[in-house]
């Protein structure tokens, strides 16, 4: 077990080094950071909540969108780089199991996304903290209540987003393990993420009375097999209205996130097990 972890961590380490060298990563990283910084230039002049909400939504949106794109494309890319360049041939001829290989890929990519989330969230925290202090001063001058802004909630939000991206990476790895081409993995992976994000839609549809049929069965599969990715987006509630999150919600979201990561990695290993390298 110790040896298996050691090997996985080495795969993760090299995957990390490969990922941070990619131009695609640098591009989205800079774009996301620029978006968060640019949002700081906005002034709404109502001295309170809506300006902070605008700032936060901009940051959440950038993190969500660029994180998702990075998660899908980088996972497919780093997986197929090993297969297409035949470096996997060298690695898998060693006493390295395919599960260890996939676990290493997962950890390496997830670590890169961790850096991405951390930097963007830190930038957002700086912007929010700075504006919140200014706005609180202005509000005090006018004897108004200061706007709420919880930076510890932001840290929790960042952790949740990182976990959400972990689910995305594990899901795309499972797709890539069975896919023949990079493009197929990206397209199907992106669709799966989108469907996971729109879970609440299909859940609502499922609750409506309807004829049992093929459509209904597909809907059932969709809602029960794909993770609900929307449940991680608690940004507004955590940061701007820190007392609105129900007590059991966070542990449940964390646990289900971890469970989905493990389940998709097991599925990926199963699909990858007999693949010709």
């Amino acid at each position, binding site marked *: 077990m110790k040896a298996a972890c050691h090997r996985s961590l*080495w795969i993760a380490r*090299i995957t990390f080094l490969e990922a941070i060298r990619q131009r695609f990563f640098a591009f989205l990283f800079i774009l996301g950071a620029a978006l968060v910084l640019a949002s700081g230039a906005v002034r709404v002049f109502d001295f309170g909540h809506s300006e902070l909400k605008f700032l936060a939504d901009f940051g959440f949106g950038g993190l969500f969108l660029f994180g998702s794109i990075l998660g899908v494309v980088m996972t497919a890319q780093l997986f197929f780089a090993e297969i297409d*360049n035949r470096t996997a041939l*060298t690695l898998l*001829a*060693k*006493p*390295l*199991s395919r599960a260890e290989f996939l676990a290493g890929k997962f950890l390496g990519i997830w670590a890169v996304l961790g850096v991405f989330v951390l930097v963007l969230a830190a930038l957002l925290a700086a912007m929010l903290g700075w504006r919140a202090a200014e706005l609180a001063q202005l509000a005090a001058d006018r004897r108004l209540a200061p706007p709420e802004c919880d930076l510890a909630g932001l840290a929790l939000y960042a952790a949740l987003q990182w976990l959400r991206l972990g689910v995305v990476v594990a899901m795309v790895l499972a797709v890539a393990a069975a896919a023949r081409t990079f493009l197929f993995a990206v397209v199907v992976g992106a669709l799966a993420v989108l469907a996971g994000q729109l879970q609440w839609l299909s859940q609502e549809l499922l609750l409506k009375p309807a004829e049992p049929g093929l459509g209904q069965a597909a809907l059932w599969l969709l809602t029960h097999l794909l993770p609900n990715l929307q449940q991680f987006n608690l940004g507004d509630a955590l940061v701007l209205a820190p007392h609105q999150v129900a007590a059991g919600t966070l542990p449940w979201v964390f646990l289900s996130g971890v469970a989905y990561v493990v389940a998709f990695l097991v599925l990926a290993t199963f699909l990858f097990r007999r693949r*010709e390298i």
Partner: protein
Amino acid sequence: MTAAPAIEVRHLTKDFRVGLKGVKLRAVDDLSLSIPRGQVYGLLGPNGCGKSTTLKVVLGLVPATAGEVSILGLPSATAEARARTGFLPEAPYFHKFLSGRELVRYCAHLSGVPSDRVESAVEEAVALVDLREAAGRLVGTYSKGMLQRIGLAQAIVHDPELVILDEPTAGVDPVGAAAIGRIIEAMRARGKTVVLCSHLLGQVEQVCDRVAIMDKGRLVLEGAVEEVLERRDRHVLTVDALTPAALAAAEAALVAHGARLGAVTHPRRSLEELFRELVTGSRDA
């Protein structure tokens, strides 16, 4: 009890499905081989005859359609079997952003070299393939010969009993190929089993103890190089300062004893021997 052979292949068949219709392509066809330990074994055949496919099945990288394979008495495709085996793939390609030494270190960790012995194992492997000076450079800057040699280093860094080399000299100049040949001989001297596959026959003849020849996925010949190549019904005499009179006398003497002179020619050296006499080394490393 005698030790199990290094590699045992029994009735191996491998079909690939190609194209959208999934037409079957038989890459290996009912192949049976037993590769003994402690020898250099050559797997020969034209391009596309199934050599690489056979090696990939042996290593568990590709599942067999039918048949059984074992490595050192262990079922292949187990981590234990692979821990005792080193593999250099055909036309190897490695992560370009690592230096040669980092690559070999990475492979040492994956191959189960204990952490406190990794550095010495890496230096030993790099020295064996004569890349000590170039080991600090990025793999992306290596020439083809150097890539093959760093590939060899990553295959042997964990000191495996069995080393499998797929076309180790493809694209390498004769001087580099001779260097690889010397490394293979050094491994045999250390009691390792080396299996190499190639279509460069001259090279194979020099380093291999046994050969198997494949054609269209089937085994057509197998045996010790000496036995396979020797023509026991014919003889060659090498004579210095032969005059026409001496030749006539010798022929008469041969005829008198019921023998017959087949041909009189000059011995030739191979272009490879000539090349190696004239050229001393490449600029690699």
